[in-house]
């Protein structure tokens, strides 16, 4: 799997290269600023890009802008965005640029190596991985809404895990229940929220995010 990395802090850049390489990914280019990132993304067209939001030269949201611009030029280019803080505003901007192949995670999540690699692979495969913090903010924000009140606490848990891009098996493992129980919960959620039943995980996540009005 070919990866382009955009991260300006040497310590984190080297760490990420080591981590990705250890899981048989090839970092074809690692850059430390916005313009170089955009160039690298458009020329290499990697299987997945791992991008820090804040990059030189402005130290604002250069990385995010480069990612959005690259996805405008190369539709569907898988990008996993990392940041020290998550904003729904940014999640919304990322998602408005096209479907799938999209991740938005706190940098902290890197420390759970296995899950982080899983997220990189999900995004590379065209899936969606939203940070639990984005999802929980969304759920809190929409908590007053009628349809969400109809969900049981367990169903809300399942909904949150779905929005993070977890598979049924992943959700079952997390909640220590059977996969069959998970799919039952999911059916209930779809019925209560009037969502269509998607075929694959990605469409499922998008349905959830659309519902949550991200």
């Amino acid at each position, binding site marked *: 799997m070919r990866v382009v990395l955009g991260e300006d802090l040497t310590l984190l850049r080297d760490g990420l290269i080591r981590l990705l390489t250890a899981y048989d990914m090839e970092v074809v280019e690692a850059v430390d600023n916005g313009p170089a990132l955009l160039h690298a993304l458009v020329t290499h067209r990697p299987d997945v890009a791992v991008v820090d*939001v804040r990059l030189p030269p402005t130290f604002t949201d250069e990385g995010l802008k480069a990612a959005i611009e690259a996805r405008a030029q190369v539709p569907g280019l898988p990008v996993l965005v990392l940041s020290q803080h998550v904003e*729904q*505003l940014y999640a919304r901007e990322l998602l408005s640029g096209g479907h799938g192949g999209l991740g938005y995670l706190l940098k902290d999540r890197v420390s*759970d190596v296995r899950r982080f690699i899983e997220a990189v692979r999900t995004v590379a495969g065209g899936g969606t991985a939203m940070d639990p913090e984005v999802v929980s903010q969304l759920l809190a*924000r929409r908590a*007053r809404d009628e349809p969400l009140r109809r969900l049981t606490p367990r169903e809300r848990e399942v909904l949150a895990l779905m929005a993070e891009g977890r598979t049924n098996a992943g959700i079952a493992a997390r909640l220590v229940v059977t996969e069959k129980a998970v799919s039952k919960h999911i059916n209930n959620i779809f019925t209560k929220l009037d969502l269509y039943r998607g075929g694959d995980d990605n469409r499922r996540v998008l349905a959830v995010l659309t519902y949550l009005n991200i």
Partner: protein
Amino acid sequence: MSDGTSGFGRLSQLTIRTCVRGLVIAVLSVIPGIPLFIASVVSLPLLAVGIGVVPVPMSLLGVRRRASQQRRFALEWSRVSIATPYRPRPHEVSNGLIGRLQRCKWLLTDPATWRDLLWTLVNAPVGVALGALPAFLVSIGVWTVVADTGTLLFGWSDTAPRGFWLQVFLLSALLAGVLAGPRILKAHAQFSAALLAPTRKELDAQLGRLNESRSQVVDASAAELRRIERDLHDGAQARLVSLGMSIGLAEQVLRNDPDLALKLLAEARESSGQALTDLRHLVRGIHPPVLAERGLDGAVRALALTLPLPVDLRIELPGRPPAPVESAAYFAIAEVLANVVKHSAARSAWVQLEYSSQARLIAIIGDDGAGGAVPRIGGGLRGIERRLAAFDGVIAVTSPVGGPTVVTMELPCELSLART
């Protein structure tokens, strides 16, 4: 010769301008000057019988506006700078009777009000005399020249013959009007300054207020630093210590008890995650990253998205305010919106953010909630007030019982060009 012509043209242009300005001063000295003075003097005794609470502030504020107008004229036309002497407006608890009484007290106890009133009286004759003088001098001179030229060329005979000295006198009046006109207006400006400028005592009082607000700001930022220190000490630092301990222990037992080592390492990872969460919250409280990345516009949009009620946004900022103003405005808006969520039981809210032509950043926050918000001592609104005061900003709250609540903030500032 064209130089001479344009020189003459410029001189006559300047003269006409001076004459017009003088006449404006003369007319305004009488109307509204005299009616305002009479209204004030007549309404003051009415206070004794209670009905004065309505006309007194109205007429005195009218006098104040007239005086402020003259301060502007003095600065713009004669470069005589007259500082504003008024005491700051108190916070009115209501628009009802108590609010009116507060307004009366604020106006009547300010010595500047009485000097304004005295100026309005004295200025009626002085303003007319000095204001009309340049126009008078110039017009009699011009009239002489026109009449004499007419007599000479066309044999007009309706003008009485004048003696030589009268002729000289009238022509020198023209010269005086042209040359001394601006100085006459300046004399009027200086006369006004004598009554309208703050006295030494008032300047001292202003200085006192500035010192007070400065020390409040210094206190507030010292308290803020103490809070940050404590948060770091009890939060992230403590967690990093525990992280180090877990890793150290894992190192010790790695060979003998790999299972325990794994458990310790998992704990260490958890601690690092917690430390990062603590730091993230702390950073958000100091300076939200989205504010640094997107400015006030983006930060308010991001904030609105995280609230549990719909917030309608109308943001029109042609550039970015200076960073400290941006930060003060952001936290003020965030505090107001937090109050909306906590106390108002509102179903929706709105935020309007714009930059006025008077170089002010204006934020208006409203909701459709229950109203009845009262700024309490030590409450959030007072905190915002102090924070804004450091930038000469002000906040006004209207919140009748039953709603809606509208909070308006104004912060004087310059905008830098919007970044692309």
